[in-house]
């Protein structure tokens, strides 16, 4: 379902992208930020609470987001909704099992299972940012 694409031999670059990271675990957030930064992206976060994430979700310059589903005792859903409103693509990065209700709310979204290889993460985020362009093209054709 939400599996990342096959790992490319060289991970894609994310130069110029602004990526929001929402992750309550300090270590995972730290590592995510490092991986994304190493690929050239500008990282917003990692945000450890929903409140903090919402505070930056309205930033129109965001290119993509990586969201942990469970943030403390809350879910990341309000953030996801806000991002969807602004048409910012996002992936869920979660250890949650398949029956999570978030999947029924966001049936089309990408889910990356924890723990993922840095290359898988980068491929998935890069895929997110290509997607809208492709959709625009198909819309023009029709």
């Amino acid at each position: 379902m939400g599996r990342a694409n096959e790992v490319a031999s060289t991970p894609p670059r994310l130069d110029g992208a602004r990526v929001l990271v929402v992750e309550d675990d300090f270590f995972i957030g730290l590592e995510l930020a490092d991986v994304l930064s190493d690929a050239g992206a500008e990282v917003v976060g990692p945000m450890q609470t929903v409140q903090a994430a919402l505070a930056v979700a309205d930033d129109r310059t965001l290119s993509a987001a990586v969201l942990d589903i469970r943030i403390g005792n809350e879910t990341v859903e309000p953030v996801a909704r806000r991002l969807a409103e602004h048409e910012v693509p996002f992936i869920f990065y979660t250890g949650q099992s398949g029956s999570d209700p978030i999947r029924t709310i966001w049936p089309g979204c990408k889910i990356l299972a924890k723990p993922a290889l840095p290359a898988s993460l980068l491929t998935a985020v890069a895929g997110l940012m290509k997607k809208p362009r492709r959709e625009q093209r198909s819309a023009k054709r029709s």
Partner: protein
Amino acid sequence: MSPTAALGEATLHRRAIEQVAPPSILVDESHRIVHLSNNAGRYLLPPGGPLSDDVVDLARPELRFELRSCLHRVFEQNQSTLSLPIMVQFNGHGNRVHLFVRPASDSVSPRHALVMFIEGGAVDESVLSGDSQISDDTVRRLSQELELTQSRLRTVREESDAANEDLRAANEELQSINEEYRSTAEELETSKEELQSINEELQTVNTELKLKLEAISRAHSDLQNLMAATDIGTLFLDTGLRIKRFTDRVTELFAIKLADEGRPISDFSHQLEYGDLIKDARMVLSDLAPIRREVRSRNGHWFDTRLRPYRTVDDKIDGVVVTFLDITDRRQMEEALRQEKRLVDLSREPIFVWDFDGGILEWNRGSEELYGYSRQEAIGQRKDRLLGTMVPGSSFDDIKKALFESGNWSGELRQRTKDGRDLTVESRIELVPLDGRRLVFESTRDITERKHWDERQRLLLGELTHRVKNTLAVIQAIARQTLRSSSSNEDFIEHFDGRLAALSRTHGLLVESDWRGASLAALARQELEPYTSDSSERFKIEGPSIILPADLATPVGLVLHELATNSTKYGSLSRRTGTVNLSWTLNRGNDSQVLNVLWEERGGPAVESPKRAGFGSVLIESSIPGAKVQREFRPAGLICRIELPLPRATDNGKSQ
């Protein structure tokens, strides 16, 4: 003879007529002379012998023949007759005389006749003298013969008359006899007809009797066959309780033979444990009420014994009929059923029976215990309504369909108890048609608890998977972060091993508490003990009992681990006399509480800030969510302050 003055002129007239009228004689039916006229005597000449009064006898011989026939004609045919002239000799002179005979009255059957003699004058002798001389003798002879013959004829005639008379009488008799015969014949005819009809009736009666006889003999033969074929022991007793008749099965119970008919039943021993048989039979005879008992025989069989009065066709009581029906199988089945029912009732499993189109029929103790409704409350109620049944993931229609197709269904149902508790049960339903009714046998098992546990287990498993994956991601991040700040493989391995072990120890504490949290004291002890094994004097742990929630315990454990490792490498624990003092306080505000942790090193070498902030420093200063961490690198030793706001839910220090 001289007329008197008294005589009337009529008499005078009659006398005159009489003097002029020819002589006459009045004769009755039997020819007897009733009256003579004055001058009639000249025509009479009585014959010799006894004097007869018959006019024919008294008349002159020449006149007799003619007179007889004339009289006959008068009396028989009522006709007057004037005869031809008859030659009559008066004193040697022949005279012609006519006879005139007529009925004396005009009646139809005259009783009297008047005979008149009319003289025609003297016959001239000369006329006669020519032949008289010659024929006189012949005439006399002939006339005598004639007279003789006439006399004979008269006799014959009289005889004939008499005979005729006789014959007539005989004839009349015969006629009357004949009539009698005829009437007798008619009577006989009638009798014959009656006989015939009686005969016919008899024949009909006979036919009927024959038919009845046939019917009776058929009935008798039926009875014989019935007696022989029936499996029911039947014993007929008369009013004196003597054996009248019995079927074969009776011989199995009583020691009787065919020859024993007529003997009292009390003479015979029997196999039944039924000492009151004779008493009951007498009671039936006196009360006329049937008696029924279930009686055991000595060989363990049971008999349904019924005593009834024997009623004849015309409803008279003529003894007792005793029947013995072997009901051993039924008794055994009843007993088995009773045991089964007891078992069903004993069962803790709810078992109940309901009518598909009606209410509950059976409700065992298991049902009472599970649902809380007593038997009295449940019987008659619609099952689905009583138990508020719902079918999760299916519908009543599906169940009905399955029942009609295969006769049974099993699956999960939601039901509600009397006190409103919702149950999940595993139900087995079987539809059994019985006597036109559709009975449903249902047995349920309460799996509410199991379902609950199943759900909990499912949740736990999901949670566990999440934690494992999250923990793996944490380890991955720590590993990569450790690697980023490691100068060599050995360096990486040392740091990573230590951090992994610390993570694992915190994890161990959390598992012990079912992930509710970890005691701060236990956490500190675990992290410090490995480095102070030689003397527990070297570190002090002080503070109220605090339980850290799982999401805080992990980083706090790691931070303590980092502080302890750094201390053994560069701080107080790197010297034999160095000590660490770990203490904390809990400051409660109005709606928040803050944990203040103080890490104090003494007796170590002089410390200074690290040249660059490696992963270890980042870990200590930033990994605890919401915490403010402050490190002071004093010459006397490191002081680290951690100010950590705690959610109120973890405030369980008071309870300890």
